[in-house]
């Protein structure tokens, strides 16, 4: 890594979206010191590796407040653009290896390793709320994920997805309490050993059960599973499957008089190039008006929850990315901010409360369910 870091010119294209309308790097938008920009971060990593700078609490904050949203890689004009996120992840990895990670990050990873979730909650609670049969060779495996399993708002989102699948007559099951963390945040925080362990456990489990297709609710899980080595199962995000169900006529939709704006999650959009499916779902609902925020698709502005920040939240405060994004959503005149990720949902619901706004944050499945149930 250190052989290439010097190639960053610190020109600053990486801070912006492609139309330059505002700063699009969440940590730079929040802190505004150049040190928190992608280029500043890369120069500081190089200085740390060259022993020009020693580790500090502030450097830890600079490093771990990178949410791996990938805007920098999307906008960088250099040939090494695709390596930027990996360089930052490698620096996090080195910090973890040297035992330098901030306590909150360390606890986050330890909880995943010991308890299979970042909060350290009992494994027995993972599916205690879930009224669904365990996977027994059905067509699809619905992977719930930590954010949906342990977080009330995520649970609601999972229930919406399940309800839609039932309406469509889908054959599916879940792993219940046997589900393991997907490992996306471990990967993005540079704990590659833990990621590999989780990937191996999940792949093995899926193999044992004969799983051929996994449907994830969280784009983070979707992203992680796409990276699993020796993967012999198909992975879909739930929005991809829902669109298929609509197109096959398995979900009949009634009119909803709503104005909605859609937020692209980084791990569905920039990391995996899925932009159109969620929009097509929303547009398929009669009466629903979809309005775009200025920053959308490849230019979407991250909620600030990636790389574990939905738990340890180094980017919180009055100018947090989530609050900035909620203000942008309000500017569209939409009454609903639609999301396709349980982390975005939680981040934005908190932000809406902090902003004392009337904007409603709804997952796409909830909006779709409202339309489908009216039939």
């Amino acid at each position, binding site marked *: 890594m250190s052989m290439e870091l010097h190639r960053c010119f610190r020109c600053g294209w990486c801070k912006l979206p492609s139309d330059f309308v505002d700063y699009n790097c969440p940590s730079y938008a929040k*802190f505004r010191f150049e040190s928190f920009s992608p280029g500043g971060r890369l120069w500081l990593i190089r200085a740390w590796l060259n022993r020009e700078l020693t580790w500090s609490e502030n450097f830890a904050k600079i490093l771990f407040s990178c949410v791996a949203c990938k805007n920098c890689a999307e906008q960088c004009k250099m040939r090494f653009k695709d390596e930027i996120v990996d360089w930052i992840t490698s620096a996090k990895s080195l910090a973890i290896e040297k035992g330098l990670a901030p306590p909150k990050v360390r606890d986050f990873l330890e909880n995943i390793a010991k308890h299979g979730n970042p909060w350290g909650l009992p494994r027995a609670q993972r599916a205690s709320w879930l009224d669904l049969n365990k996977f027994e060779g059905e067509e699809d495996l619905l992977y719930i994920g930590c954010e949906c399993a342990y977080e009330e708002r995520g649970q609601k989102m999972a229930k919406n997805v399940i309800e839609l699948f039932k309406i469509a007559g889908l054959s599916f099951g879940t792993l219940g309490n046997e589900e393991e963390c997907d490992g996306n945040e471990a990967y993005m925080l540079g704990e590659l050993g833990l990621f590999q362990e989780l990937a191996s456990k999940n792949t093995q489990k899926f193999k044992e059960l004969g799983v051929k297709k996994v449907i994830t609710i969280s784009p983070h899980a979707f992203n992680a599973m796409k990276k699993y080595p020796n993967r012999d199962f198909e992975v879909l995000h739930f929005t991809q499957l829902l669109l298929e169900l609509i197109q096959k006529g398995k979900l009949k939709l009634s009119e909803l008089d709503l104005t909605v704006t859609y937020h692209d999650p980084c791990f569905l959009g920039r990391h995996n190039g899925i932009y159109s499916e969620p929009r097509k779902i929303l547009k398929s609902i009669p009466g629903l008006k979809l309005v775009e925020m200025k920053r959308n698709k490849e230019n979407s502005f991250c909620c600030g929850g990636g790389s574990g920040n939905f738990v340890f939240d180094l980017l919180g405060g009055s100018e947090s990315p989530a609050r900035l994004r909620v203000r942008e959503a309000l500017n569209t005149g939409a009454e609903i901010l639609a999301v396709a990720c349980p982390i975005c949902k939680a981040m934005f619901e908190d932000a809406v409360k902090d902003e004392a706004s009337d904007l409603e944050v709804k997952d796409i499945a909830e909006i779709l369910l409202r339309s489908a149930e009216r039939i």
Partner: protein
Amino acid sequence: MDKIYKALAEIVGEEFVSNRKEELYIYSRDSGLSEPRFPDYVVMPRTVEEVQKIIQLANKEKIHVVPAGASLSLSGLTIPQKGGIVIDMRRMDRILELNRKGRYVVLEAGVTQGKLQAFLEENAPDLCHSLPEAPPSATVVGNLVIHGQGNLTQAYGFNSSMISGLEVVLPNGEICRIGSCSLSPYWFSIEPLPYLAGLFLGWFGTTGVITKVGLRLYPKKKLRDVELFVLEDPKLVSEVIYRVTHTEMAEDITTVAQPYPLMFQGTIMIGIYLTGDTEEELEFKRRLIWSSLSELIKAKEGGFMALTPDMKVGFLEKPMSSLTRSADILKGGGFVYCGAIIPIEKFPEALKKLFEIAERNGVTFAHTGRVIGRGHCMMFAFAYPFNRADLERMEKAKRALFDSYVATLEIGGVPWKPGAEEQKLILERMDKNSVELIKRIRELLDPNKIMNPGNWEVEL
């Protein structure tokens, strides 16, 4: 907690002041080859009143102040030569007014080129400002304060001549407005009052902190195209520029000469940009320009090169990302250049100097240039990419850069945005009474010598 840090935190809020080593490290250097110099504090104000309080504090504590935009000059102009407080202006990023009919905009000092470009695209798509080839993260005021150029420079002169009003915090902390905005709510003109704007442009923050600017906008035509005239004899470049500028049909005229790719070696390319609201207008302009060069084409001295659609996309991108990408030519994350402002007839001499300097120092090189006014002068860049991980190459590029500044002065040119060391070269050669005037103005405005010391510093 140290008292200056505490005082700064009271002014801007604790989250926007730092004396932590990481911020001090980043603000101690830019992407060029200037020696790092560490500030003591970095502070990010949001309002002119906060800037005022910072300046008042600096006077009280006799601490130096360096105003900074995106620090992209590549010549170290925002590196604090003698420590002190770096004021990062980029939180002051509001676009305050658009006067569409009067064709001007009022904005704060931290607004980026990209933000203004996006704002106009949305709110006044038939208007534009003169956009430099700097990355879109560069600030508008940063470009103005160094007398930058842009795509409208050939038609309207240096970008700094497009200023229609200024708000400045003087070195004593007073807030001062310049131009029509000093006596009227409208920021439409600097003239016809005494030309006080000159006290703050080209001075690199040594005479005050610009906090707001009124900037003229110009018609943005619906269509834009580029023609590439290629020739081999550098002596003919000024003739080509003279002929094309005489038609008054071009939006922008640029020059390129570089050894790579090999197909371009030994040639000089002149980019002639055209705009029009209709294909007919564009074609009319194109014909006049072709006709102006027909004699040279007939004499086989040069000709227009056919550009593929892909090549055109690159040339027409605003700003051109390929220029930023040249920093990675040596897979090394850096390039520096001496932007020589020269009479156009000096082009052959400057190009010869560039080849000599590159050969003498053993460095890779490139030339890009832009015509300023109707051929009144041009910016001739002596550019040298370097590898940030190769100290020897960096040293060579640094020597080549210094030689280029000397060469600029030798051929009768004026270096643009010179760094602290190169400013000394200029002051040594400048008329003594002009130097004395610079000194007296600085002493008058900044008796405590707090403003960006080390820059335009006269030691008589």
